[in-house]
């Protein structure tokens, strides 16, 4: 048996790093959420565990591990466990196709900072999103609780409704880029905006697809079940929605999956529409390639954190939709708008060629 080729070891290191980083960021998003909400409501927020409460997520994690688990006697045990596990799994799967940075040249080898660049990456993301419904649906049904089932029903109906608008807004994006590999889409955004030399490195898709970005972002909010779309778990009507019966680590999975989803959708939005790791005037700095890459990664994470903050800002600012308003927005506004967006994109592309 031969030793693993060096490329495989590279990949393994990157996979472990991606897992680690997304888990740590999701963990600290929980703290950030509480700090941001405290800031917006003029409170202090958690400040006991360590300075500024930086050990709060660790304390929460330990608590999830140590709490007694209660599986209701009437629940379907196998599916009760499967539900949150699936939720967590689908949340973790997407980060495989996100390009975190350009290439690094180390020890004479070129290492791309991306787990893998499959050429149908956009469709892969779309597929994982469509599988994501099951975690909530199965968990809610298996609990054998009326609140849970109602929450699961609402969640699945909401997610499939917004999936269509999301797919149609991605179609318009693919029309302008002509490729489905996220890596290539990011590279394309390093050019000049509208061909103006002064705007080098600013060819972000958000300037070519403003309407598409807006639709995509609204759908991302809905797919993450974040306020104003958090009807599946709205505590005023449904106790805890689909996770009413859950406790211990399984509840932790559901809550944690939401934060990972938020992180991943922020990453996808910044990669598809906000230039990913590109930053303006990169060539003017005259740095070595490795430094450019490292600064690019820094910019990418800055964009992601800005989006995460935006998610939180929205959550603590806007009230929740009513169900008929939610469905009206999804079916009667977003879908016609995204079809219109496709038509406009097609006409503009042909007229400017």
């Amino acid at each position, binding site marked *: 048996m031969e030793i693993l080729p060096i490329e495989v070891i590279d990949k393994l290191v990157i996979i472990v790093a991606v897992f680690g980083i997304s888990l740590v960021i999701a963990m600290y998003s929980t703290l950030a959420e509480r700090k941001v909400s405290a800031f917006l409501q003029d409170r202090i927020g958690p400040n006991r565990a360590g300075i500024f409460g930086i050990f709060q997520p660790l304390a929460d994690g330990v608590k999830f591990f140590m709490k007694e688990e209660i599986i209701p006697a009437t629940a*379907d045990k196998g599916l009760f466990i499967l539900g949150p596990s699936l939720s967590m799994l689908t949340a973790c799967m997407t980060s495989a196709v996100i390009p975190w940075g350009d290439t690094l040249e180390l020890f004479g080898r070129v290492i791309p900072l991306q787990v893998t660049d499959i050429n*149908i990456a956009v469709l*892969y993301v779309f597929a994982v999103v469509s599988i994501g419904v099951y975690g909530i649906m199965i968990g809610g049904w298996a609990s054998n609780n009326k609140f849970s089932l109602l929450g699961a029903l609402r969640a*699945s109906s909401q997610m499939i409704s917004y999936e269509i608008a999301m797919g149609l807004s991605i179609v318009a994006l693919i029309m302008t880029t002509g490729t489905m590999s996220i890596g290539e889409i990011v590279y394309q955004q390093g050019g000049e905006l509208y061909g103006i030399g002064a705007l080098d490195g600013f060819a972000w898709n958000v300037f070519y697809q403003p309407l598409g970005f807006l639709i995509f972002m609204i759908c991302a909010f809905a797919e993450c079940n974040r306020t104003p779309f958090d009807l599946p778990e709205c505590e005023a009507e449904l106790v805890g929605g689909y996770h009413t019966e859950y406790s211990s680590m399984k509840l932790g999975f559901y809550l944690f999956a939401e934060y990972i989803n938020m992180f991943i959708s922020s990453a996808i939005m910044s990669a598809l529409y906000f230039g990913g790791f590109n930053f303006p005037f990169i060539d003017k700095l005259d740095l070595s390639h490795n430094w450019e890459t490292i600064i690019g990664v820094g910019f990418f994470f800055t964009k992601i954190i800005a989006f995460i903050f935006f998610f939180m800002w929205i959550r603590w600012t806007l009230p929740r939709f009513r169900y008929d308003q939610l469905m009206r927005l999804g079916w009667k506004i977003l879908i016609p708008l995204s079809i219109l967006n496709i038509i406009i994109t097609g006409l503009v592309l042909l007229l400017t060629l």
Partner: protein
Amino acid sequence: MDNILFFILSALAIGGALMVILARNPVYSVLFTILTFFAIGGHFLLLNAQFLFIVNIIVYAGAIMVLFLYVIMMLNLNKQSEPTQPFFIKVIAAISGGLLLITLLGALRGMDSDKVISDIPYSDIGLVKNLGKVLFTEYLIPFEISSVLFLSAMIGAVMLGKKNLKDH
């Protein structure tokens, strides 16, 4: 490596399909169907048919199975309410299933058994771009006609729903 993957995927697909009919709880049946679709998707991937793979996941495992789960979860198909089928329906079901099996076996007999899966040359037709080129030039008319099919399906769905909504 490809062969090992092929056998693992085949075992998963056949095992999943068996569990679909053996599982007592219909919800488990649906979940095993999803597993089967994933295994079949893996086969598509081994044949380098990326688009078919992703369609299989999104449409079958993602969309159609959500509808199945809806129907099964909401229609109260648990044990107490499951009606026992009359004997003659069981006989008819066995006959029709057996006929399908015979047809499949006949098709298998006619196949050239020398041709193993790894001999099929890799082609790039399964890549999305090539598929798009063929679909929108050569197979344009069937493509457009399929949209009429979708329209009729949508009207059918609405008609079905109309009856249901009136009952409520």
